[in-house]
């Protein structure tokens, strides 16, 4: 399967502040790829680099085999881009903005745009600036669908949207992506929405990659174990087995990719052979918080 995006040894600083170092990932054609991370971990920075709006300090970022900083117009036409906050030209109306964009894209299909607009309580002459955040998100999505790109880059599509609009957004997106084998690169703060949507995920923390794997593999292999921890002096630490842990009110929690036996052995080594560990099922959001931590 062809790599639509390839990121190799990407390092970026804002002034002296390191955002990430030796960042590597790739997005295969036809996959829905989620970049997940807490605020300030570099998600939007990554998207800006991918779209050529930021020159990385070092490393390489290729989109359809082209250096993302010098994308040709032909390649840019293959990429649909949703800016964080569903930013569009707010002085235009629904009809005007469709007319404007249609001139730039050879594969322009206005039907999906107007189909989406018909679901909104708006007229074609309504200005985007007079619309709600949810309605603006549908305009932005409709324009991307009409562009018919091979790769969709969606920066925090869920920002400011209520549950209904988030669902509408994803329902349309998934139908579109699956029908035409489109590649999607998406970030969001609402992890639970992406649970049954993503094919692959990349979870990043400050300056490092925590997880890079298919979402199914992550759900199947990342586990949460709880146990009693009566002795408050026991010191847990992160290591090959323990990817993260919490101690709260006499209860310990370990997040791990290792099997239950390995966790038990680790606790044994700490003199806690009496500890009864119990696996707790996790949603994707639980797993995300488990690996990144609450703070």
């Amino acid at each position, binding site marked *: 399967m062809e790599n639509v995006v390839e990121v190799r040894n990407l390092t970026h600083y*804002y002034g002296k502040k390191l955002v990430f170092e030796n960042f590597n990932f790739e997005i295969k054609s036809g996959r829905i790829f989620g970049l997940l991370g807490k605020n300030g971990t570099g998600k939007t920075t990554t998207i*800006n*680099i991918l*779209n*050529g*709006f*930021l*020159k990385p300090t070092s490393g390489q970022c290729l989109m359809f085999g082209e250096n993302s900083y010098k994308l040709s*117009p*032909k390649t*840019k*036409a293959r*990429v649909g*881009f949703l*800016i964080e*906050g569903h*930013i*569009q*030209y*707010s*002085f*235009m109306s629904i009809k*005007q903005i469709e*007319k*404007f*964009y*249609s*001139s*730039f*894209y050879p594969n322009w299909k206005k039907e999906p745009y107007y189909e989406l607009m018909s679901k909104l309580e708006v007229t074609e002459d309504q200005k985007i600036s007079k619309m709600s955040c949810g309605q603006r998100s549908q305009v932005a999505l409709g324009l991307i669908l009409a562009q018919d790109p091979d790769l969709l880059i969606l920066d925090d599509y869920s920002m400011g949207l209520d549950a209904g609009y988030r669902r509408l957004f994803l329902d349309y997106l998934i139908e579109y992506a699956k029908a035409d084998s489109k590649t999607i690169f998406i970030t969001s703060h609402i992890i639970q929405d992406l649970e049954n949507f993503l094919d692959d995920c990349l979870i990043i923390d400050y300056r490092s990659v925590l997880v890079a794997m298919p979402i199914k593999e992550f759900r199947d292999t990342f586990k949460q174990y709880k146990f009693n921890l009566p002795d408050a002096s026991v010191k847990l630490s992160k290591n090959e087995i323990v990817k993260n842990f919490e101690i709260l009110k006499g209860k310990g929690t370990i997040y791990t990719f290792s099997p239950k036996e390995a966790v038990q052995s680790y606790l044994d080594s700490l003199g806690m052979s009496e500890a009864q560990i119990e696996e707790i099922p996790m949603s994707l959001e639980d797993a995300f918080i488990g690996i990144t931590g609450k703070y």
Partner: protein
Amino acid sequence: MYSALLYKEWLKLRTTFVGLVLLSMLVLAYIALNLAYYNEFMTPKGFWGNVIFLGFRFFVEIKYIPLIAGVVLALVQFVPEMNLSRLKLTLHLPVEENKLLFQMMSIGFILLVSLYVMITLIMWIIVGIYFPSEIINFVLNPLLLWLLGGLSSYFLISAVILEPVWSRRLVMLPFALGFINFFFTSEDPTTGLLIFLILAAVFTALLIPFSGYHFKRGIK
């Protein structure tokens, strides 16, 4: 594609442009009324004498209109682009980035030049009612200088707005204001000076892609 960009910029600028045309017409009407008044009450001989021997600038009210037009057009055209980084939408269009910026700039330039041509023609007509061609040149020479100043203000203020780094903006702004001020303080420019200032005004246009390059590089 250029026509689509023209359409977008026109939608953004049309109200402002119409407002600037109306403002210019008002000022020109005021100058025309004043001309009639001076001609009537100073007598044509006295009025001519004041203009020829004392350099009476009966048209000075138009002086800052080109400047206001240039600055307002730059603000209305480019502040919304920088607000919430909307320029990313434009630069993501499948057209070479510098070409896009020049095309956007050319649309502001065309509107501004249309306004300036209208001002010049009306001025030429109303002054021509009372004066011979020598006096018309006496009016059009400084007017040309102010129009060039207005054009430079459009280019320079656009470049300042498009510059993403605040510290650079703060450096660029005094230079821009100083340069623009030159057009409005120079009296009776020679032909050589006018040619130099035309070239300088064209040069200021090159600063816009320079600021665009900083935006594109993500420099903050």
